[in-house]
């Protein structure tokens, strides 16, 4: 099982060396598993906040369906590199989250605009489903470099060290791209250019 803990870096190294050896099936299986687990966490984060709605447990069926689709899509991919895979997986995870939000909490869904009202005043964390959809779409529209780092950080749950390894960048550069992505996202979502 791959998860975002200290052990993941070692795991990633193993995966990258497997990929070097051309053993793409093993790599793909591990990475798909990782992405499905990350999807579950993000889906829980996105939907658990709608406290009164009480539907998270019931979204399990939807989750299974969408995770299955994620699994199938990724299984069709022949990853040329870990970078290629993570980019694609991050994008797919985001699309699944958007679809999950729209299908169950969309314009007619019971969770629409349900505001928990418990956000810290200055946080830009989405407070309802429509804000989550806007959030994911804003990520979609980030410039390539920022989106790539955002994908790997948030949708794939990799550490900055791991991202550096996957992208062939220094941790310092990864950190700066992550900061830039957050500033651009804030600009899009809150309409206040960080200049």
């Amino acid at each position, binding site marked *: 099982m791959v998860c975002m803990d200290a052990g993941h870096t070692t795991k990633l190294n193993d995966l990258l060396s497997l990929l070097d050896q051309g053993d793409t099936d093993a790599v793909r299986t591990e990475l798909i*598993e990782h992405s*499905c687990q990350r999807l579950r*966490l*993000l889906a*829980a*984060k996105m939907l*658990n*906040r709608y*406290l*009164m709605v*009480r*539907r998270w*447990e*019931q979204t*399990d069926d939807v989750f*299974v369906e969408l*995770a*299955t689709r994620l*699994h199938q899509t990724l299984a069709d991919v022949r990853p040329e590199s870990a970078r290629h895979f993570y980019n694609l997986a991050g994008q797919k995870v985001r699309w699944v989250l958007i679809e999950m939000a729209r299908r169950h909490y969309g314009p007619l869904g019971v969770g629409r605009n349900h505001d928990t009202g418990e956000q810290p005043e*200055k*946080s*830009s*964390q989405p407070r309802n489903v429509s804000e989550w959809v806007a959030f994911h779409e804003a990520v979609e529209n980030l410039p390539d470099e920022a989106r790539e780092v955002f994908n790997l*950080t*948030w949708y794939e*749950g990799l550490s900055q060290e791991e991202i550096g390894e996957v992208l062939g960048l220094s941790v*310092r550069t990864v*950190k*700066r791209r992550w*900061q830039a992505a*957050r*500033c651009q*996202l*804030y*600009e899009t979502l*809150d309409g*206040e*250019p*960080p*200049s």
Partner: protein
Amino acid sequence: MSIEDEAQLAELLDLWESKYEQGTDVPIAELAAGYPHLEETLEKRIKALKATAWLNEPVEKEDTRQSPEDYGLPEKLGRYELQCLIGSGGFGQVWKAFDSELHRSVAIKVPHPDRIGSDQDAERFVQEARRVAQLSHSGIVPVHDVGRHEDVVFIVSEFIDGKSLLELLHEGSVSEEKAVNIVRSVALALDHAHQKGFIHRDIKPANILIAQDGTPKIADFGISISADEESNSLGTLAYMSPEQLKGEQVDLRADTYSLGVVLFQLVTGQLPRTETTPSQLRKAFADTSAVTIPSSIPSSLRSVLSKSLHVDPALRYSSASEFA
């Protein structure tokens, strides 16, 4: 902005964020001392970084629902004061509650409103609870009461002050001998229920509670409501029998299969099938009828596991007592 200014700004933001993560919010004036022309931009970017700092937090720390109100429930369901959430799953939540008349702790299961969509559903639920209440066995969590409060239907059962088998699994504190004893006890309790005409349909470590005296007790009898097609699909994927997964009619051998999965997990630390989606699992069942059992498992246990986990119900144990 020049390339040099961008680089300087990036340095300052790195410095600010590393201090911020350690709990110090360095004032912008202090940070920008020596770079007054960057102060305004720095201020805006720091504002953006603060507003998006939640993206740096681990995603796992999220579910904050704790109180009845969070779940749209009142503080009291009739005479029962809801105290704290002790579990939630596909069917609903389980609350620890206090019986204000008998002055004792109880566990209250509240199904999701969608599971009880009509008055007919509610009546079926109540009737099933009444039937389950007649089950009397030391290895089955007894049902005390069933009730309705406005549109909420609930089942009241004994509060078991102990841990679930799932928790013990996570702690890694189940020896092989203990595992065998637990599973044997559960099989005997299941046999009692089967003889009374009940099928559990969701046997899994989370539904096996271990009381403080060590007695395993099966919880959640009655979730099946009735043996209709829909209830067949209830259950947890990893422990679900092949026939249940296919939506076919199930009998007691579905429970013995699930208990076989529990035994496998207890003695090997792994699930017999690693597939995580229904379609994969269905395919795995179709491709291979037998599971691979690690060679480290003693042969007597291997044969029990192999028989209880057979894809074909006809080749499994014909009763839970035979399993035991």
